[in-house]
């Protein structure tokens, strides 16, 4: 399957410059190879400073590589001419719910991208209504942003991106500033986008419970990819993850501890239900 996002030998550093402007180079990404296929739900996990946000900002040309290339939908991000096209293919949702909303009314904000792209007004209206319904915000479409909760604001931001009908949505720690209910709302919405609309999702986060329900988890540490695989596989590396300052689900921890004590359990247990099942099976095997 075609890769929507393709990074080859991607390196990035802050600083550099020449002569008087020269500043010490701070490497953030080191020779990364990374690809996202159409329809995937990928989570990029990493602690603050690991380079995960920097990586995400290369996907829609907010940042350009210091070395290597990034292709989005076949277009090179370094190519200035392709900029607007790239950004209509890959939409981005940021961490701060307030600082993404431009308009004074919800539905006008959702229309913003389409207005910028010069889409015909009736078509804008149609797409805005569809997007609002998709994120369950249609009833609040005439509200002002400051009347909304954090979770609702993020859903408006997502609607604004969906209205562009992008191939891929990149979300950079979208739930970091939300309360548990808001987090749940946003995650449900994201998963729905992937499941029902086949939208490719790249979710940047440090919350492992968000990673647990992705198709694929990529762990970034110090600008390099440490682990890349299905959630179960990645989480089974309990000690490694703890070393790089990441959490592991308590279910995985428990099974890991029991395995260390000599009991036989699968390595890739994540969900509560799975854990209960596996431990029950263990009990049966032991004959209690």
């Amino acid at each position, binding site marked *: 399957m075609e890769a929507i996002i393709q990074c080859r030998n991607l390196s990035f550093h802050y600083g550099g410059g020449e002569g008087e402007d020269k500043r010490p180079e701070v490497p953030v990404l080191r020779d990364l190879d990374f690809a996202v296929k159409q329809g995937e739900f990928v989570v990029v996990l990493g*602690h*603050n400073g690991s380079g995960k946000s920097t990586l995400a900002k290369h996907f829609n040309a907010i940042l350009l590589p210091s070395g290597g290339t990034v292709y989005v939908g076949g277009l090179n991000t370094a190519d200035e001419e392709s900029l607007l096209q790239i950004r209509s293919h890959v939409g981005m949702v940021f961490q701060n719910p307030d600082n993404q909303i431009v308009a004074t009314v919800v539905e006008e904000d959702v229309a913003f991208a389409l207005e910028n792209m010069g889409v015909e007004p009736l078509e804008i209206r149609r797409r805005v209504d569809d997007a609002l319904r998709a994120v369950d915000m249609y009833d609040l479409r005439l509200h002002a942003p400051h009347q909304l909760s954090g979770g609702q604001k993020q859903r408006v931001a997502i609607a604004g991106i969906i209205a562009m009908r992008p191939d891929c949505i990149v979300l950079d720690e979208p739930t*970091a*500033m939300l*309360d*548990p*209910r808001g987090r749940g709302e946003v995650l449900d919405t994201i998963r729905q986008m992937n499941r029902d609309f086949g939208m490719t999702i790249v979710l940047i986060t*440090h919350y492992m419970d968000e990673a647990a329900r992705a198709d694929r988890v990529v762990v970034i540490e110090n600008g390099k990819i440490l682990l890349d695989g299905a959630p179960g596989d990645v989480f089974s590396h309990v000690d490694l993850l703890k070393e790089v*300052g*990441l*959490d592991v*689900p*308590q*279910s995985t*921890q*428990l099974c890991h*501890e*029991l395995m260390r*004590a*000599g*009991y*036989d359990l699968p390595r890739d247990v994540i969900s*509560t*239900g799975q*854990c*209960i099942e596996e*431990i*029950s099976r*263990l*009990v049966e*095997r*032991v*004959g*209690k």
Partner: protein
Amino acid sequence: MPIIKTTGLSHTYSGGTVFEKAAIEDVDLHIERGEYVGVIGHTGSGKSTLVQHLNGLLKPTDGKVYIDGVDIWAEPKKIRDIRFQVGLVFQYPEYQLFEETVYRDIAFGPKNMGLSEDEVDKQVRQAAAFVGLRDRHMEKSPFELSGGQKRRVAIAGVIAMNPKVLILDEPTAGLDPRGRDKILGEIREYHQQQENTVLLVSHSMEDIARYATKVLVMNKSKVFLYDTVEAVFNHAAEIEQMGLAVPQITKICMGLAERGYPISPNTYTVEDAKRQLTEFLGGKGRGE
């Protein structure tokens, strides 16, 4: 004598009109010196409102607040003094930094207390040490620091007032697991060294289970429960009903208990769950 006592504490908005809404209702609290209290409740349960009454930022519409035996509103003109005894750190406190140097920002609180320069210096340096700030940070502008460091400066600014009670509203909001562990670790050390009282408002039952001695559960503007961590977890099912997220390990143990295994459904740490399971499984089933 409890350090914090409230009797019939209520705060109603728009009293007497159609829009009347009780943010907190009839709260009776007895918090003893030296406790580390976790305050938990769904969004809108009244936690933030309650906590702002304890340092006199909000005035009760009914009921009384006693700090160290003194009715804080007996002399309304002196209400500012209470804020030096009960230090409150808001969510995202790094947004309140304003001074030219880290030192001066931390010194803001002590200076407002009218202390001598020497006393201010002592308290500033002590507070900075608690949150892990080094001397080289002190003369920098707070705006040059990273997000996590800024937060430390903000917390130090409140600790520097040497309050009898320290209240922190979600001090780990937006931090990654490593950042979270660091800050909570530092708060625990502070609590142990100062032997004062700490209130931690949090959405994370895991954090509260790990650090608190007592838990205050707020539900729909009222106090649901104030008891030890153990006792509160005996109500795990009810707490889940309230919309609070019970730790995953508790859910797992609840599931195992339901299947008839001798595991306590009120377990709240992985260590405890492991211990119970290894006891139950005995020596059988271990790998040869």
